[in-house]
């Protein structure tokens, strides 16, 4: 029982880290450019498809990973220049619609190029297998790697935002776009860089998750909505908020699915308990978000109102 619980906690952590990779890009783009980007999930999907296709072609997961990173960053830069740039001055409704249109284009485009049947990615031999913890718990190495990649990206982002010149500019752009443009920073190039950075993070997340589940059209959408839940809970524009929010959502979802059916089994018959428990578990994170927003409308770490 304890082992199972620890395993579920690790699963929640891994899920949370994957969500963080998605949410980090989303929150940066929203915080800096004030843009709601529904197409973020498409970049995640693109990353997974490119990784699976390249890995299938060359036989190397690592080449696939690099290719997915490049492809999603490039796709991000292209759509920023072609479409997204025209949306900064528009209201949220136009942003929602235009990026919804991008989802249609990306999803059907992927189906066109890669076919309708799902692709599969295998974990490279070095990272497959399980790690045995003291106490006897066995846990897949690859999931641990995802947790560490998430932590590394979080560290890297904190350093980037807090400790580099680019980070200073990004923060300045968040605070007052007119002022930093007046100070001579090329704001549109800065925006393209931020957007491509967010896209690359989404692409990595897609490639990593592609090894855990099948790679198919539409895989980005559930994750996208969860990533939105994460940044709304954490506070829009805050990397720290995205990290805390992602862990909170990952844990709540995983533990809810694990504990609720067991809890209900104490008071009703097992079949009904499974139904009620899983129904309730699936809405738990949305309840969490609603509660956070009603109590603290700007999110846990949000500065703006």
């Amino acid at each position: 029982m304890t082992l199972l619980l620890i395993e579920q906690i690790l699963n929640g952590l891994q899920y949370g880290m994957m969500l963080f990779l998605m949410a980090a890009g989303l929150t940066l783009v929203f915080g800096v450019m004030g843009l709601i980007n529904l197409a973020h999930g498409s970049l995640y999907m693109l990353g997974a498809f490119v990784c699976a296709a390249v890995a299938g072609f060359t036989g190397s997961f690592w080449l696939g990973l690099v290719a997915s990173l490049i492809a999603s960053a490039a796709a991000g830069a292209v759509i920023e220049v072609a479409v997204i740039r025209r949306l900064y001055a528009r209201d949220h409704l136009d942003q929602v619609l235009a990026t919804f249109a991008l989802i249609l284009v990306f999803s059907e485009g992927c189906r066109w190029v890669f076919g309708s049947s799902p692709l599969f990615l295998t974990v490279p031999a070095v990272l497959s297998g399980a790690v045995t913890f003291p106490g006897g718990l066995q846990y897949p190495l690859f999931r641990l790697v995802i947790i560490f990649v998430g932590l590394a990206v979080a560290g890297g982002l904190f350093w980037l935002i807090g400790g580099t010149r680019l980070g200073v500019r990004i923060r300045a752009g968040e605070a007052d776009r007119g002022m930093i443009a007046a100070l001579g920073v090329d704001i549109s190039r800065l925006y393209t860089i931020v957007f491509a950075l967010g896209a690359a993070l989404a692409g990595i997340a897609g490639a990593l998750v592609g090894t855990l589940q099948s790679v198919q059209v539409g895989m980005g959408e559930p994750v996208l909505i969860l990533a939105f839940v994460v940044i709304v809970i954490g506070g829009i524009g805050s990397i720290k908020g995205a990290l805390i929010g992602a862990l909170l959502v990952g844990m709540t979802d995983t533990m809810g699915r694990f504990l609720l059916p067991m809890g209900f089994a104490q008071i009703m018959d097992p079949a009904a308990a499974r139904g009620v428990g899983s129904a309730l578990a699936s809405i738990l994170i949305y309840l969490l978000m609603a509660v956070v927003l009603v109590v603290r409308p700007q999110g846990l770490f949000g500065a703006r109102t």
Partner: protein
Amino acid sequence: MNITRETVVNSAVLALLVLVPVVAQLRGDPFTITLATKVAIFALAGVGLNLALGFGGLISFGHAAFFGIGGYVTGILASHAANYEPLFDGAFTVNGTQQMLLIWPIAIVVAGLFAVVIGALSLRTSGVFFIMLTLAFSQMIYYFAVSWPSYGGEDGLSFYTRNQFPELNMFDPLNYFWVCFTLLILAVGLSAMITRSRFGLALGGARQNPQRMASIGIRPFWLSLTIFVISAMMTALAGSLYADLNRFVSPAMLNWHMSGEIMVFVILGGNRRLLGPVAGAGLYILAEHLLGQFSDYWQFFLGLVLLAVVLFAPGGVIGILTRRRGDV
């Protein structure tokens, strides 16, 4: 009454929507009648959303919830009636029903109750948070429908006969089209009445400048909540009709993609135009049908068209058609 270009365009849109199924009937083509019925139903959902989105300025990204609730109320009532199982059997008995005239008000009231709760909570926020909260609530209902096994869960719920309307054979596609079309016209009329009323004017004020409304003693919250609920009820009626059209409800009706599509109907036709959603839904179904014939990947092109409309023609189709020379 002065005749503006918008009046002309509106009349043309409605005339087209009536003509297509009538001609199809004469040519013995029930498929086209069903397509036109679908347009009328989607248009009704859009007219509902347009009240909140266009006239109220409330960007609801969760109207699929109300569309789906309308559908599920219909499906649940009809399947209970078909199986002679009471809905509730205790101190008193509640039976299902197959009468549209009973189903509609129940669907509308149930969705309205949901809308009161969702609206009251979501309206505590604004901007992007409002969009996300409405989305979150609709996803909540979606996942609930997926994982709740009693009414089909993920597989959805079929009911085998279309529900009944007094004195009319609902299996005749043209009759069913007339029912849907009449409801659409009533909804459009109601929208026109609402937007021209004192309430509608105050609502427009609240959309453009909430502080100013508050300063003259009108609380924007109540205006917004009222229009949100009315909007949800119309969309729920459309959901009920849609369920009856297909004799099937599934969680897909609740999915956020549906919310996006209803939004697309409104914007494609023209936001805040009375008949915008009708033109938008018509174009959408037409595009689905025509593009679908020449490519399996029609959504790819639909996406490009939509992108072009949002970027370059914010007024939608009716906006383009009614634009005078020299207007920008």
